[in-house]
Structure formats: C-alpha cells, structure tokens
C-alpha cells in the first residue's frame, strides 16, 4: 500500500470517533415524571388537550386548529434531507414536566435541576448571561432575567406568559413573520407549539450581555415545538443564544421550532444557535427575521448534532439601509445530514447581506448548503455576498451546494464563492514536521477551517465547539 494511502487511512481512524463522549456529557436521560402527557400520535384531540392544559385564550386555540388542518394538507418537502423514516404517528406531542415555570433553580424537581447543572446552564448564567430560559420537553421550567434588565423594561419570558401578560404585543407579531401555511413544519409547530422565549427590548435599550434559552428533550420518541418571538424596538440591541441537547435513544425524536424576529428601525439583533441534538433527532426548523430601516440582523448558526437538520435562517430586509448577515457552521458525521443555509430577501434599496457558510463532513455524513438570495425589481444599491467553504475529511462523506440567486434589480452587486477542500497531505506533513502528532495536526487544520466563524460565537460556546471537534477527532493513534 502506498504510504499516502496509509496516512489517509490512519486519519480516517482518527476521525472515526464522532459522537464519542456525547452520551456521557449530553446523552443521558432522567426518568419520565411528566405530569401531563398526550397520547402518542397527532389528532384534533391532541391539539385540544394541549390547548386545555395551557388554559389559553380562544384566538390561540383557533390558531392551533387552523394550523393542524394546514399541516394535514401541506405536502412534505420534496427536497432537502431524507425524511422517509420520520414517523409522525410514533411521536408524543406534548409532555408537561412541572406545574408552572420557576425563577429559581432550587424550586425545580431534583432531577430536572440536576440535568441543567450537568449541562452547565446555571453556571453559564452566573458567569455570562443577562437571563436564562430553560425548556424541558414541552415547557419552559425556568425563566429568569437580571433585575437591571427588567428595570429597563426588557421582557423575557416563555411565550405562554407573554400571551397572558402582553397580548397586545404578541397579537401584533405572533404568526406574522412565519405564517402557519409557510411550510408543513411551520404548520405543525403552529398546531402543537409549546414553550419558547418571548423577548421584547424597549427603544434604545442595549442588553449588553446575552440572553440564553436552553432546550432539553428528555422523553423518548418525542416532539418539541417551541416558538420564539423576539422584538427589538427602535435603536435597541440584544444578543440571544440558544443551545439544545437530548438523550441518545434508539427511537427517533422531532424538534420543529418556529422563530420569529423583528428588528425595528435602527435595532440590531444577533441570534446564535449551537445545535447539538443527539443523533436520533430530526431537526426541522423555520427561522425568519424582518429587518426594518437601518436595522441589522445577524444569525450565527452552528449545527453539530441531529440525524437530519433542515434549517435556513431567513432575513427579510424590509427597510432602507437594513443589513443582514448569516454565519453558518455545520458538522456532518456518521449517519448525519446537515441541510442548512440561508435565505435573504432584499425588499428595499440600500440593503446589504453577507452569508458565510462552512461545513465539515466526515464518516459518511452529508453537509449541504442550500441558500437563496432574492433582490426585487426597481431597487437600487443592493449588495450581497455568499461564501461557502466545505471541508470533506474522507471518501465516504459528501458536500453539496445549492445556491439560488434571483436578481431582478439592475443596480445590484452579487458575489458568490464556493470552495470544497480536503485536509491536504502537505498541510499534515508541514505541521508534523514541527512536532505535532498526526491527530493534533488534523484537529488544528479543522479548527482553523472554522475559526473565522467560531470567533463570532460567545466565548463559552467557542470553547465548547473547539472541544467538541477535538473530542470528535479524538483517535486511536498512540
């Protein structure tokens, strides 16, 4: 065997360890002690049972029932990840873990509290965050915001509370950014939604340190359907972070969220996601933001886990001077499909957008960039730049790029670059000639590949992502 093949084969062995450590660190499960749980499968009765458990207003109940009909009527997507094994009838759609949400970790049932401690959520809250929401199966069991932020008028709660306490704001925006008929999974979410965060930042208020929501699925063959609604009023700023994990089960689960974001005039919102679902999770999410005059919307989207992810954070640039940015990192390992990307719609003049996507595929994983940039006719001074880099670590893995550009305005500049690369033998030899082992050299190259994006993540997540990659590349050498 030529020495080159031997090197590459060694490398395959090194990086074969995807998912190592997940089970211990994130993949554990606690006993199921749900106090309300719907029966398996989804019917009108399921939806009514959820509505009743929540004791919600009539308009929400009608919204759900309408959405259920849409869900039943709308077709499955004919493109994207492989959903042929997804069994809607096998899922449980609602599980309520506790009676109401708490503002103190100590008030939570021991096992739930222990779950979040093991995941490091309370510690992160003390160190870096202005507020935390923690969802366990279907409900936000914990929600808290620092008093100084509360005094400035920042609202941060679960969506159900917002429906009760701020119906005027909720009614104005809820379901308007992502309408239920947008796609089958948006309809599904709208029918059975539960939990998620509501954020409202008053005019001119800057939430200097991030708010975070942590989504945890504990039950088996379970569907989690939170909705998140964030409104940044004129001239305000907020950085919202979400993280998610689940136990490793043999049966598949489903996470189908809807995220609606409104950045009003001169506001700026950064929304960062570190998706680290277990390998039995279908992650089919609709995320969209409207950015008005001179507003800035930034999606930072990291996808590491899940079985199949289909997620294309969208930005509608609605007002002049609005700017949108999507930074996307995907890691597709064994049995994983990361079908991710971005959608940018330029609806106003003097708007600009940047999409930067980096993916790594290995061990038979498939990472696809799927993106759309649309510029309406009659606008002027529109700029967009899309850059996709893929790193493929072995022969069995795949990377695809599906860019769509629909440019109708004549005064527009559109740049698109796509690059696929492999870890080169020259790079490995170079680093090893300085004393690095082959494994460390490979990790250094992979970490370097995503570094420009990781830098955009909050510190603790950046460290976590680097650690995860080290863990996943950890090998059999030595």
């Amino acid at each position, binding site marked *: 065997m*030529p020495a*080159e093949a031997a090197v590459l084969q060694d490398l395959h062995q090194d990086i074969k360890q995807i998912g190592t450590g997940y089970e211990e660190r994130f993949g554990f499960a606690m006993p199921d002690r749900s106090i309300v749980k719907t029966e398996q499968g989804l019917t009108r009765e399921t939806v009514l049972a959820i509505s009743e458990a929540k004791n919600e207003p009539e308009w929400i109940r009608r919204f759900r029932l309408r959405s259920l009909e849409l869900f039943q009527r709308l077709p499955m997507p004919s493109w994207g990840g492989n959903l042929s094994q997804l069994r809607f009838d096998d899922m449980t759609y609602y599980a309520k873990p506790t009676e109401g949400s708490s503002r103190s970790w100590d008030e939570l049932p021991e096992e739930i509290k222990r779950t979040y401690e093991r995941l490091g959520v309370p510690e992160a809250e003390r160190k870096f965050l202005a507020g935390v929401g923690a969802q366990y199966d279907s409900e936000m069991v914990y929600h808290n915001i620092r008093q100084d932020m509360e005094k400035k008028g920042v609202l941060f709660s679960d969506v159900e509370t917002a429906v009760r306490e701020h119906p005027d704001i909720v009614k104005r925006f809820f379901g308007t950014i992502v309408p239920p008929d947008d796609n089958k999974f948006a309809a599904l979410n709208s029918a059975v939604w539960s939990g998620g965060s509501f954020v409202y930042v008053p005019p001119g208020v800057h939430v200097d340190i991030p708010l975070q929501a942590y989504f945890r699925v504990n039950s088996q063959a379970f569907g989690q359907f939170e909705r998140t609604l964030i409104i940044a009023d004129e001239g305000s700023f907020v950085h919202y972070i979400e993280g998610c994990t689940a136990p490793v089960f043999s049966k598949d689960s489903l996470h189908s969220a809807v995220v609606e974001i409104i950045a009003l005039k001169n506001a700026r919102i950064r929304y960062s996601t570190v998706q680290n679902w277990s390998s039995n999770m279908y992650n089919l999410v609709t995320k969209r933001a409207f950015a008005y005059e001179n507003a800035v919307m930034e999606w930072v989207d990291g996808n590491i886990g899940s079985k199949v992810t289909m997620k294309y954070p969208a930005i509608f640039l609605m007002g002049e001077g609005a700017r949108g940015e999507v930074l996307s990192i995907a890691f597709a390992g064994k049995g994983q499909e990361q079908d991710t990307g971005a959608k940018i719609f330029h609806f106003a003049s003097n708007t600009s957008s940047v999409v930067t996507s980096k993916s790594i595929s290995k061990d038979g994983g498939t990472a696809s960039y799927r993106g759309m940039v649309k510029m309406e006719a009659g606008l002027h001074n529109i700029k967009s730049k899309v850059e996709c880099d893929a790193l493929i670590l072995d022969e069995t893995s795949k990377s695809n790029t599906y860019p769509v550009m629909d440019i109708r305005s004549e005064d527009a500049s559109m740049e698109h670059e796509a690059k696929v690369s492999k870890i080169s033998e020259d*790079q490995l*030899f170079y*680093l090893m*000639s*300085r*004393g690095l*082992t082959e494994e460390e050299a490979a990790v250094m190259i992979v970490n370097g*590949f995503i570094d420009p994006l990781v830098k955009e993540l909050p510190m603790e997540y950046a460290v976590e992502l680097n650690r995860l990659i080290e863990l996943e590349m950890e090998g059999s050498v030595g």
Partner: protein
Amino acid sequence: MKGLRIDNVQAGLESKVILSDLNLYVPDGEVHALMGPNGHGKSTLANVLMGHPRYQLFKGAISLDGESLLDLDVSERARRGLFLAFQYPAEIPGVTVSKFLKRIADLRKDPPKNASAFLTELKQNLAFLEIDPSFVNRYLNDGFSGGEKKRMEILQLLTLKPRFAIFDETDSGLDVDALKIVAAGINKMRGPGFSALVITHYRRLLDLVKPDAVHILERGHIAASGGFELVELLEKDGYEGVRRLSGTVKEAVYAS
C-alpha cells in the same frame, strides 16, 4: 558519533528510485551546503530525512547523534530535533502564527517556562528577523508573500532551536534584504549542538552563511565534496567543471 549520518541510502518517491549509494556526514556544529542540478534528488533527500510518508527508504541507514531515525515518523523526528525549512511552506488558514508558535515551542526539548517567557523570546526573535509584531496575529502562511513565508520558516527555526536543520532552497525568490535576514537566522543558530544542511542553487546565500563543507548531489548521489572552492568552480564552469573533480574529494571528506 555526533552529527547526522547518511549511509548507503537508496530512496525515492513511492516506488521510483531517486537516491542511491548516498553517503553524507554532517558533524555536530557544522553547516554544510548541498548543491546540484534540478531533478537530481536534493528535495527528495530533504523529504526522506524528515520522513515524508510518500518517500520510501529502500535501503541504507540514517542516524542523528548515533541514533537511527528510520523507525520514527515525521513528528517523532521533529521532536528528536530535526527541522525542515520548506521550499513551499503549506498554508494553514485559521491558525494564528502566535498560537502555532506557542504550541510548537511547548513541544521542543526545553519548552519556555511560561507564557511570558515565550512572549519575551518571541519578541526578541521578531526583532532579530525584522518582522512586524502584527505578523503573529495572521493565519499561518495564509496569503503570505514568498519572502514572508521564508521569514516564517526562520522564525520557526529560532523558536524550535532544532538539533539539525535542513534548508530546502530557502533563498529562492528572496530579495537581498530578506536573504540577509535568513542568513542571519541560520548563523544565529550556529555552534555546538546545531548542524545544518543548506540546499541551494546559488552562491549568494553561501557567501553569507559560509558553509564548513560543500556537497554536489548529482544523479542521486554525492558526486563531489569539498570546500567553498566547489562553489566558485560551479559558478565558473557549471556542473561540467565539478564532474571532472567527481570521486576524488568526495571520499576524503566522507572519511573525516
């Protein structure tokens, strides 16, 4: 026996034989020059010494300070004190120069005691090589000019302080100022505990480095060895002039 010793080496790229009956000895504390026409095996020798996985050693022995290098992989050879300054250094996007240098400094025999010791050392090396300090925040070799890449190799040389260094045409494509800096870097390392093989086509680097011996590699083996007069002869009469000497000086130097 202190120094690098190459005995009867037959080696090549994958199954193709490029070097044969190659003998060379670089004693401790000496810097030797290796010259020779293109395509006759100079870079192959550099790669074989460093242990590039695509290069095969079919027979012979290579040892450093009496210890064989043959069973060691690339990184083990590096940690034994072998260093290769590349003709075409690889680009490693996303890895900053400072992070990389800190990591490799920690891998050398006497690593810096702490981060501040490393920084002091780094600042001295940067000043010595006339490299702008902002350089260390750039990604390793990524988008570097040819000259910057070569300076980066010399910066790594000073950081790693190897036992034995191979310079593979480090002078190619350098302007006079950069050439002086590269030579100063090599000369700074000179002394007991360091030896080197300087692969080059040109006299201008050797004028600054002043090698202790000069070898001509032709058709896969050392065709002639001698002192600086070989460089002068080469410049005057080309390789044809050197060929007339072949076989005589070689044995004498090898035996020393």
